[in-house]
């Protein structure tokens, strides 16, 4: 499984755009990149998934360069409620094996007023 590296923590202010970058140098051809969000005392919650280029949904955007060795989760105009831990997970979630994903240490985002 591809190992991921993220910043341990980030700070931002309400209304700003936040970009969290994840490194996954040994990503495999069949691997997808998935981001989860976790609030205290809750289970992780899916944010977005992508394979290459750019993916956007109502919550976030995911930018993946051509070499796929990194990815950036972009949260537009964060609010206090976006304070959480964000996990980048990499794995073959669509293949025949469809293995479970592995969580890393995550990035703790603190949004200030």
């Amino acid at each position: 499984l591809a190992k991921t590296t993220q910043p341990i923590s980030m700070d931002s202010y309400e209304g700003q755009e936040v970009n969290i970058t994840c490194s996954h140098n040994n990503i495999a051809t069949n691997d997808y990149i998935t981001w989860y969000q976790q609030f205290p005392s809750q289970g992780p919650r899916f944010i977005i998934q992508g394979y290459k280029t750019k993916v956007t949904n109502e919550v976030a955007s995911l930018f993946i360069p051509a070499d796929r060795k990194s990815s950036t989760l972009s949260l537009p105009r964060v609010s206090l409620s976006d304070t959480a831990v964000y996990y980048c997970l990499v794995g073959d979630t669509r293949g025949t094996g469809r293995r479970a994903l592995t969580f890393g240490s995550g990035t703790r985002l603190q949004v200030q007023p």
Partner: protein
Amino acid sequence: EAGVTQFPSHSVIEKGQTVTLRCDPISGHDNLYWYRRVMGKEIKFLLHFVKESKQDESGMPNNRFLAERTGGTYSTLKVQPAELEDSGVYFCASSQEGWGTEAFFGQGTRLTVV
């Protein structure tokens, strides 16, 4: 639609006792996963069921842990006998076809062994 439900939400037991955690996945989800986070550590994979079969149990820490999913519906995770290092939060997740786009997580069970 009901999400993934875990029981109990909290459990405090003494070292050496037995505890059984339960997970009710989203109806129709064949895949069920158990994870746990012990204090200060990362969320670690324990095992993966496809229906009632164990697809991958490589993350189970030792033979004090027993997971079952009879009938391919709800799952139980039994710890017997519990040790202090088993304290942590146990998460269950389910998905329809493999992990696919996303797996849905429950709120977790906080287990404290004293």
